């Protein structure tokens, strides 16, 4: 178990600046997730922490020890590769025992620990198979067992579920969570899937183009995104450019396309803003303290357990989501629709130049 600190980590590959100065603080025994679109620098961050790449600038600490330029083999931060990187010429047993043999443990101890690891990932009986004789999910478990068996200070997982099919993905997700809780180790998890990140993490750092946009618990990230990017990355949402017309503390009134809404802002002092409204927070029937805006029905989409109504407000499309059939029973294509929106659900954020 270890606490990890990154301070001002910068990494360039030739012309591309992969990391523009990363600051992170990962606590003891935490399952911490780096979330961001492909190419934003997640793997690079992970590789720097694992000691497989070295930063151009910045410092990396495990607890109070600086490890920025410590070689990978001495770091004890074990990475599970996205492609698993199992050695094809070794059996499952030999793959898992490898790190223990390197540490020159006695044979019996090695056997005991490999057995323990196999049980942990529920792969008893597969010792003598070769990696090519295993399914994707099994290969992934071997990779995790191989990492865990050496009792790493820190476990690094690079998109561990991205090569699995949807059903297995859910299963392995809870497996990883279970193992992490059981062993209480610090885990740094990388994914581009916001739903996966929400489900598994203690805390999340959202990354975009080599920078951290926001760090927080899944609930904070989802409900109080601090930037337009975070808001739009965390699932389907309405992001609407708007202008502040009235301001009183953190309460503001904004205007877009001749529609006015009340909202909340954290710190923004500009008048050009974006407003973010989650579809499920828009009500299709009157509620207390809500502002009502009326537009035209553009589209009604049935998703099974919920329904989305796309309303047209001037030129602007806004999505509302409901689980109640009755809410849409009276709606007709091109007919009128009224959205009811509470001030607390309208986030006013600085406009980002993306």
């Amino acid at each position, binding site marked *: 178990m270890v606490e990890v600190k990154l301070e001002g980590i910068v990494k360039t590959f030739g012309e591309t600046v992969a990391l523009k100065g990363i600051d992170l603080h990962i606590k003891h025994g935490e399952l911490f997730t780096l979330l961001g679109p492909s190419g934003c620098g997640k793997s690079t961050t992970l590789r720097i922490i694992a000691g497989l790449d070295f930063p151009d600038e910045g410092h990396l600490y495990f607890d109070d020890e600086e490890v920025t330029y410590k070689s990978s083999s001495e770091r004890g931060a074990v990475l599970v590769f996205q492609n698993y990187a199992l*050695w094809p010429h070794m059996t499952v047993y030999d793959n898992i025992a490898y790190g223990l043999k390197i*540490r020159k443990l006695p044979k019996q101890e090695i056997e005991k620990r490999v057995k323990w690891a196999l049980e942990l990932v529920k792969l008893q009986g597969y010792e003598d198979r070769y990696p090519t004789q295993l399914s994707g999910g099994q290969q992934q478990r071997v990779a995790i067992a191989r990492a865990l068996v050496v009792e790493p200070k820190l476990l690094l997982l690079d998109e561990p579920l991205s090569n699995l099919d949807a059903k297995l993905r859910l299963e392995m997700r809870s497996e990883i969570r279970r193992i992490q809780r059981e062993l209480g180790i610090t885990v740094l998890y990388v994914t581009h899937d916001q739903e996966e990140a929400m489900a598994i993490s203690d805390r999340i750092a959202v990354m975009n183009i080599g920078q951290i946009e926001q760090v927080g618990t899944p609930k904070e990230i989802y409900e109080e995104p601090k930037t337009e990017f975070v808001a739009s990355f965390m699932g389907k949402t309405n992001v609407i450019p708007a202008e502040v017309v009235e301001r009183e503390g953190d309460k503001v009134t904004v205007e877009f396309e001749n529609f006015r809404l009340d909202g909340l802002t954290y710190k923004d002092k500009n008048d050009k803003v974006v407003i973010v409204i989650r579809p499920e927070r828009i009500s299709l029937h009157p509620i207390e303290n809500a502002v009502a805006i009326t537009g035209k029905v553009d589209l009604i989409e049935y998703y099974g357990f919920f329904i989305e109504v796309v309303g047209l407000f001037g030129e602007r499309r806004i999505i509302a989501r409901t689980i109640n059939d009755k809410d849409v029973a009276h709606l007709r294509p091109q007919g009128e629709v009224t959205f009811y929106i509470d001030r607390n659900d309208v986030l006013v954020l600085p406009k980002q130049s993306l």
Partner: protein
Amino acid sequence: MKVSKWSERLFGTPLFEPLVAFSYIFPLLYLIVFLIVPVLSMLLIAFTYDGNISLHWFKSILMDSYYIQLPPQGEFAQKLTTSTGESLYLLRGLDFGVVLNSLVVAILVTLLTAILGTVFAFVMARYNFKGKNFFRIALFIPLLVTPFVNAYVIKQMFSEYGLINYIFHEVLHILPFRIKIDGLAGVVLAQAMAYYPIVYLNAYASFINIDPTLEEQAENLGSRGFHLFRTVTFPLALPGIAAGATLVFIFSLEDLAAPVVFHGDPLAKKLMSYQIFSKFIYGLGERSPEIAALSIIMLALAVIAFLGIRKYVGLRQYAMLSKGGRWKPRISEPKPWQTLLIYLVLLPALLITIFPQLGVVMLAFSERWTTTVLPQGFTIDYIKEMILNPDVRRFIVNSLVYSGAAVILIVLLSITSSYATSRFKGILSPVLESIVILPIAVPGIVVAMGYFYFFSAITPENSPLNPTSLYGFNPALVLILAYSIRRLPFAARSVYAGLQQVHVSLEEASMNLGASRWKTIIGILLPLISLNAFGGAMLSFVYSMSETSVGITLGSINMAQAPITAFMKEVLMSAAGSINIAAALGVLLIVVQITAIVVVNVITKQRYSFIGLT
């Protein structure tokens, strides 16, 4: 540990790692010391006259009509009459002077092999026909190297009463007269017959690797037949064909076997390779600036061709559009005229080109071959003699030892250089990458002369390492070094290909789990590339055994320590023994080569990776 900007720039590792540095430095130094410096040391001699830097030697070569003869002299074909009164056309070629002769021969051989190789490759890649498997196997036969003896058989085939006249004049009556091919024409013929499969293999690989959807798209747009071939297929395959043809150009330029075999005709001697060779042999001990200048001219021609093709192929990487997956090749049934072409033109051509190797085998098992179509009188005396006569056996043992030692060095050099260039991005990587394949561009006779000047300059006079030593020069070290340099590209390519198939994360995972780089290389990397290394080692072993240029020059100074090829040359040039014993050694080499091919095929389950330039 501390980061080192210096290590990062040179070797691509921010932390200085001795093992990585070694992987760069060892092959780099080795090639600099044993290839570049010796060859450059000739520059010094070639550009010095009377103690001053001068172009004297080059001028005297280029002004001399012996070296440059324009317009050419002689008659390409002469009409003679045989003792029985039949007309005989003797084809010898024109004399352009030594330097231009070499160039003309190399260009003609390149063109002939390019046409023949491409036609065979296209037919093999795109058509299904009866006997295709025979074609596939037979096309490898001319690649079996039997120095001197196969050129000897070709000379016999195209002689006055040889096989060709027998079939086409006596039996089929297609030829109304007899022909005899000798001199430079003989050299062109012998080289073209031996080298066209090199173009074939490269061209075949190119045709196979063309994404069929590209041709389908063109067909879809209305292109078909020859138009499709000319506008889409051929341009896409051209880089591969050109790479093979360039290799042939260099091989032709440096070839000594054919000129030695045809040296009965003085015209065949008027080639750069032969001139360097004979001047060296007859003026031994003399460090002639003229030889050095001639070597430099030859080297320049080869290097220009080599750099040209590298640039060209580099610019046209689109040819190998393999996007990972294997596709279904476009194979069709030949049209009637194509069937005729296959059986009436290609099949006879194929049979003629595989005959030399068959002839070598027959020769090894026969008593004599004078004016008859085929060798006469079955005997196993020569095979016996090869095995039992200690004087002959010695050459075999010498060759085995030198080749074996060279292969050990080659494996070490291939692994270190490929590891460095495939895994790290230091500024030395591209340098190393180029220098490792550079030996392809340096003609063997140039290596031999470079070594001669180099070793006679740096080793103590009269020590066994000095080729001018009066007390007996021991060529062992020089030959091992020469083999290891000349055959390195074959193994290095194979190992490099193997390393590219191993994902770096396999090594990273090992180091990340606590293993050192050394343990990672030993435990993870080497087991995963062992088959490639083995294949490369076999290939370079086989071609070390049949190495000619250095073997018959430096290697023949002291016959007690000479390799097989030096002995074979002695037999052909001075009738020191019978040609049949040389053929027996040729058979031995064939056996070694076939064994290697089969073993590599069985063990690595890969197609026998052959000669290529890129």
